[in-house]
């Protein structure tokens, strides 16, 4: 077997031009497959883990997915608001453990600013009831203080003590800058969720910025009940509330819905990547098959010195396997290089964090899978070689 492997490698080296092209086509398809898996995993782990332990999200009358998206994922924009009074009503209710007001609408150099209360850092959870941890500093407590997410700190190079000016609206900057500068007092540890891209300030500070003493309207608010079973009743009550048109959603329900939608898309992407890989392998098989007619001589020589047809089958299968292995390695390497080059960009733009390990189970699985598939693909030219060498006999009149 070792001897056949050496023959296979030498034979490939002899045709290294074509061999390299074949390996490249496999490499590209492997890089694509791996990339899609990385993006999928990156998007997913951040996604479902974004919010935890929140019983209800309450906003103005709007669609549930829309409310989830703008209040938790900072995607899309709120078009109306909830009154502070409704928030106070709920916050005071005996069955409610805590309520966090949220105000969105400002930005700082492309990152959204969230107005809330210091309680946010006590009650907000992500992942599996994981509290928000500070990498540096603390929550805001006095006027003009900011807390920023890990990505904001990294991209803008901020740390506790840095001063920042907030712009009105959601654009990258604004022509109507506010006069007050804020100061960073805390940087959150990375969460792998859209929280990393937030700038958090006190709700009333922001209102003050807009000329009001106190904020009277909110984008939305988060509610935690003392006992979970009560949340259904509260949700119903809020949706039916005649004092204001409200929408109360259960985050788990809305996330499940969104997850399903996303799942359809990413299953499609995955299926597509597998098809591309299949195309690469089929290409390799056809190249090997085509080369067989040139190699009739070589195969006959081998048979004449005592090689069994099974040796020839093995030779071709090993060639295919070796090509696939090399292609897969090249693909995984290319994928990593591309991710390393673009990870920061991807994170800044899409909020997806990609941190591929040097060697992980997915890569190992791809490597083994592609090599095995290549070996199998080699069966076709291998069997052809097997049969031809029998049929040709030793007639060398080519």
């Amino acid at each position, binding site marked *: 077997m070792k*001897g056949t492997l050496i*023959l296979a490698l*030498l*034979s490939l*080296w*002899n045709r290294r031009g074509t061999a390299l092209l074949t390996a490249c086509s496999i490499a590209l398809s492997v890089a694509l497959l791996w990339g899609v898996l990385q993006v999928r995993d990156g998007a997913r782990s951040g996604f479902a883990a974004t919010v935890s332990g929140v019983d209800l999200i309450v906003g103005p009358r709007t669609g549930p997915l829309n409310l989830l998206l703008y209040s938790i994922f900072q995607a899309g924009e709120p078009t109306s608001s909830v009154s502070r009074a409704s928030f106070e009503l709920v916050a005071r209710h005996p069955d409610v453990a805590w309520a966090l007001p949220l105000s969105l609408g400002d930005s700082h150099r492309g990152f959204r600013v969230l107005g809330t209360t210091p309680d946010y850092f006590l009650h907000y959870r992500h992942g599996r009831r994981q509290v928000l941890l500070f990498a540096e500093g603390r929550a805001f407590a006095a006027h003009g203080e900011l807390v920023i997410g890990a990505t904001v700190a990294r991209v803008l190079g901020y740390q506790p003590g840095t001063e920042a000016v907030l712009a009105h609206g959601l654009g990258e900057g604004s022509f109507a800058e506010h006069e007050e500068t804020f100061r960073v007092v805390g940087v959150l540890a990375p969460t792998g969720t859209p929280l990393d891209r937030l700038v958090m300030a006190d709700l009333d500070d922001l209102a003050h910025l807009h000329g009001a003493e106190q904020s009277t309207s909110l984008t939305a608010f988060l509610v935690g009940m003392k006992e979970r079973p009560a949340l259904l009743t509260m949700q119903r009550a809020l949706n039916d509330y005649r004092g204001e048109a409200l929408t109360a959603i259960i985050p788990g329900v809305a996330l499940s819905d969104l997850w399903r939608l996303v799942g359809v898309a990413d299953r499609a992407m995955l299926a597509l990547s597998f098809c591309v890989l299949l195309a690469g392998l089929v290409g390799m098989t056809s190249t090997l098959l085509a080369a067989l007619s040139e190699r009739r*001589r*070589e195969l*006959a*020589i*081998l*048979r*004449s*010195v*005592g*090689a*069994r*047809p*099974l*040796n020839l089958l093995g030779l071709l299968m090993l060639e295919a396997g070796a090509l696939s292995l090399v292609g897969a390695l090249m693909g995984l390497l290319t994928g990593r290089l591309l991710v390393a080059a673009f990870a920061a960009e991807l994170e800044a733009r899409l909020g997806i964090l990609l941190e591929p390990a040097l060697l992980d189970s997915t890569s190992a699985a791809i490597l083994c899978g592609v090599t095995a598939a290549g070996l199998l693909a080699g069966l076709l030219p291998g069997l052809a070689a097997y049969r031809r060498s*029998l049929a040709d*006999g*030793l*007639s*060398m*009149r080519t």
Partner: protein
Amino acid sequence: MDGPAIEISKLRFGWKSGECLLAIDGFAVGRGERVFLHGPSGSGKSSLLGLVGGVLMPQAGEIRVLGQAWGELPASRRDRFRGDHIGFLFQQFNLLPYLGLIDNVLLPVRYSKLRRQRCGTAPEAEARRLLAALGLAGKALLSRPVAELSVGQQQRAAAARALLGRPELVVADEPTSALDEESRDAFLSLLMQQCGESGATLLFVSHERRLAAGFDRTVSLSQMQAAEAGTVQS
């Protein structure tokens, strides 16, 4: 394994059903004999070599090599038998382009334990010895890529390979046809000499009668063919 080097009885062979290309009722080659087989191209010489080599199977009749009938062996054992006891020489392109000269010569030793054993402790040394005996020596020559060798040099290397490990039978299919006049005679005498030294039986096929001198026996394919061929069922 006793018996003549090659023994054919009542052989019938055809490529397509109905058409009988070879019909040989009796033919034998003794151990150590050097036989020149003559016949025009397309007459079935190569097929006969394929049958002798156990690569092709006849529709009827029997071929025995060194006392062993090919038909009695299963396919995998045939390959082994062929590797152990027969060395082949073709007209041209005998060498694998991706192996070095010595590695090409050593090919039989990869697949045949018997020939490996017969080489003694160092098959590579034996390969070099054979190459030197056939006029191929020197570091520069031996390390040159196979494709850069002249046809004559390639053929001599192929001869070394056919002889490595002292196979009992050497089958040569027009090995000189690609060589020029001067080289032909030189090659032939070298080949004969080496076969004599190792005691191998030589079955040499060619369309050039001129080369027949020096062989123990000359046969023509048409002579071997039976009068009544009949037909074959595939």
